[in-house]
């Protein structure tokens, strides 16, 4: 008589319990994973949106502090700035389009002193810098009529909606030409509201920055 084997397999009940537990654990893990991946994606989008907002505000602030003329636009045009040209050449393409050309001899040019006001007057003509907003994208275009320069670059690209407001320190909206008729230094509060996704408006974030425009005689 053959000896009865002592090994035994899993019973059906054991298998069902094991598989059920495995499925349960897998379902929980998978659910968590998908949720976390979603959360991660949302967080990444949110982070990128805030980074883009910060970049837009920083770009505004640099240009506004250097500007001798500021016009708050309407519609797709956010800002039109007049900047003294102080460089011989500017980048025309790429991420740095509109910035001073990075070459060895392109140094900051000396300005002149006005014989009437005693203030500093830039030489080399003016640049016109236009910030515009279309398709959830903030763009910066630099033109110079004397040289034919026309360079544009994307400053901020948003997955969801974005808006920019310009206000004074009391919260009143600003519009038109700022700081050109008086020598008063004008504070301007820039507020950007942006969301990372059109489907998740609740994740929109607000950022503000305050820039003081120079007075009229402060060239």
């Amino acid at each position, binding site marked *: 008589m053959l*000896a009865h*084997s*002592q*090994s035994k397999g899993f019973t059906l009940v054991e298998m069902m319990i*094991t598989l059920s537990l*495995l499925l349960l*654990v*897998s379902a929980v*893990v998978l659910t968590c*994973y998908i949720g*976390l*991946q979603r959360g*991660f994606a949302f*967080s*990444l989008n949110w*982070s*990128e949106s*805030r*980074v*883009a907002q*910060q*970049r837009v505000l*920083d*770009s505004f602030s*640099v240009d506004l*502090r*250097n500007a001798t003329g500021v016009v708050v636009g309407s519609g797709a045009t956010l800002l039109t700035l007049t900047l*003294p040209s*102080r*460089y011989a050449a500017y980048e025309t393409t790429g*991420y*740095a389009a509109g*910035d*001073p*050309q*990075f070459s060895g001899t*392109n*140094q*900051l040019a*000396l*300005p002149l*002193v*006005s*014989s*009437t*006001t*005693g*203030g*500093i007057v*830039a030489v080399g003509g003016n640049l016109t810098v236009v910030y515009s907003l279309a398709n959830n994208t903030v763009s910066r275009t630099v033109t110079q009529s004397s040289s034919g320069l026309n360079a544009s*670059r*994307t*400053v*901020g690209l948003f997955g969801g909606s974005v808006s920019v407001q310009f206000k004074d320190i009391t919260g009143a909206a600003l519009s038109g030409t700022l700081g050109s008729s008086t020598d008063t230094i004008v504070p301007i509060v820039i507020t950007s509201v942006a969301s990372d996704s059109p489907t998740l408006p609740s994740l929109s974030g607000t950022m503000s920055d305050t820039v003081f425009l*120079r007075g009229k*005689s*402060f*060239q």
Partner: protein
Amino acid sequence: MNPQPRLSPGGSALLVVLVLITILSLMLGTTLTLVRTNANTLNQAASWQQALAAAEAGVQQAAAQVQTQFIPLLNQSAPPDLSGAQSGTPALSGTLTTSGEGNVSATYAYVITGTKCAVNSSGPSTQTYFRILSTGMAQVAGTKYVGLDPRDAVVRKLSFTSTSATAVRQVEAWLKPVYNSISLPITTASTISMNNHNVTVDSFKSTDPARSVGLLKDANGNITSYGQPSSIAGFFNSKSVNNANGGTLVSNQYLASIGTNGQSIQANGATVFGDVMTNGGVINGAQNVYGNLRTDFSQTLAPAPVPGGTFVSTSSSTLKGGTQSAPARYTVSSVSLSGGKSLVFDFGADKTQNSVELYITGDFTTKGNAQITITKGVQVKIFVGGNIDLGGNGVVNNNGCASSLSIQGITPADGSSRTASISGNSTFFGTIYAPAYDFTFNGVPVYVGSLVAKTVNVMGNVTIHFDEALSGGLISSYKLVGWFENTRKVP
């Protein structure tokens, strides 16, 4: 019996654990990536802002250096040429330190360059401007890898090396000299007191026929006779609408403002065709003030320095001039004129030698019929180390123009007080800059020019005509007139 080994369920447990570890690792990795991205973003933006703060700190330090180090040099009688790159103390660099998580230090370094600029509107025709080029540098905290959108690097112009990442920002600022010593008819450090309503302070512009009387020019447009306030012609006050030439005075511009850094002006009914200004103080008897009563006045009154250059001792009663570029410089221990004595400032060998400087180390006094005479066409600067008392016939300035005579009361190094007074009979044309002097008017009929003193006490029926055409004088401060961030990437 050879029992078969039982299959262990531990194999499937290992599989489950491995799967879980993989999933958890992925979660941890993505979370860390997100955290690092955010940290890099914050570090990059913070360093970029810190670099600007450092650059602007450099501008501030450079501006302070100009105020404290260069103004005294430029206010000397023979100022040095400060064109070109300047050096000195404190060192032209500094460090900003921060604390907290991710703290990095930011450094700045700046260069001050003097430039002589031709300016027509105010001050001397050539003025020394200073250009400040300040570079702020801040390390980006964390690793040198800032793996964000390339647009961020474009905006912030970050510089990467093999060992670190640095945010570098450069600011160019321009400083313009402010000659405020003679910008008002009366400026004091402490108080102004007028004794009655017969005191009048008004203004005119000796080079502008719309705001003066009797201005004459030749065919080439050069002024042959300076204009005067029309009260000298007998009928003027700043409210008049017609001048002697048939033109119209700009009557609604009241520019004869008086101000003090102190807290008290006793107007006492005096007529002032301008603002009356204190530094948060009280104004009494302001019923005849045509301008505004203000409390926001503050003006730096630079000490009047001992004149530079070489002065030659003299005992002559006639002082001959030198050229504008090389004025004739004389020095005496004191001047005390009485009786019929006189001191004459005259041309040198020809009319191009029309500039005279006199350094009186002691007191400066005229009495009785004594007088100081300035030949028409001669420009005079008098530096006084002691007290000033101009009585008798006083100073007869035949130029008829306040810009031709400058009297500076030197600020004592020991802080001691000085006095000055004018009580002469003649009309005084000139400017007096004596910020450490207690000044008294004693019945001088007309004073044309401007006055800076520690205190001013007006005793008598004095009329003060401020000449709006006055320019020059001492530099009291440097004003920021240009600010520009260099947006070119600094190598």
